[in-house]
């Protein structure tokens, strides 16, 4: 996929990541709630599910999920900072820093998980 020329700058990419992670989280959320609600109706099914999650592939998927959450959160915090704190120019470094933090956090999670 070619990124349109007028979009080739860091802030646009930051927006793109934020949006993609937002949608992904929104799609995942009902599933997550559903699984947890199983606890009420059928705890054994939940256990089965949790066993399934120790599968390495699923682990990677989970890692991805936490990564998305972290990306989205720090991206969102970056936006909140931009919008509510009267500072400005350092946008690009903020965008980069939030990505780095997200990466760090999710990697920690991943390392703990394996």
């Amino acid at each position, binding site marked *: 996929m070619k990124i349109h020329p007028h979009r080739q700058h860091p802030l646009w990419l930051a927006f793109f990541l934020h949006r993609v992670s937002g949608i992904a989280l929104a799609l995942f*959320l009902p599933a997550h709630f559903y699984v947890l609600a199983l606890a*009420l109706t059928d705890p054994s099914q939940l256990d089965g599910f949790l066993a399934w999650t120790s599968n390495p592939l699923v682990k990677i998927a989970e890692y991805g999920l936490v990564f998305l959450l972290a990306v989205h959160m720090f991206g969102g915090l970056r936006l909140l900072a931009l919008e509510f704190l009267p500072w400005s120019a350092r946008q690009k470094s903020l965008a980069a820093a939030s990505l780095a933090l997200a990466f760090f956090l999710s990697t920690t999670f991943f390392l703990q998980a394996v």
Partner: protein
Amino acid sequence: MIGLKLYMLQRLSAMVMAPLVLGHIAVMIYAIQGGLSAAEILGRTKGSIVWALFYGTFALAVSIHAAIGVRVILAETILKNRHALDGLTLAIGAGLAFMGLSAVYAVTAS
């Protein structure tokens, strides 16, 4: 297509969630160390008002936040009708809140 009110709701819910997400991830990292089981999770959460409040707030905030977020994306892509948008936002928000609170109830009610 959002005005000041929806904007404020989305930003406020985001601010509420930020610490909760951090907390959630921390719990997960901690929990995962011992390998998770349903019993273990439930053992911790069942009957705990604190956990109920923690996840209850989270569920409400995320419902509001995600519903508005999805609304914006829909409005900018495929759904230009204002009434349909309003309806859908409400439906998504309510749906998520119901599912979310059910889940919280499931894991915390004793």
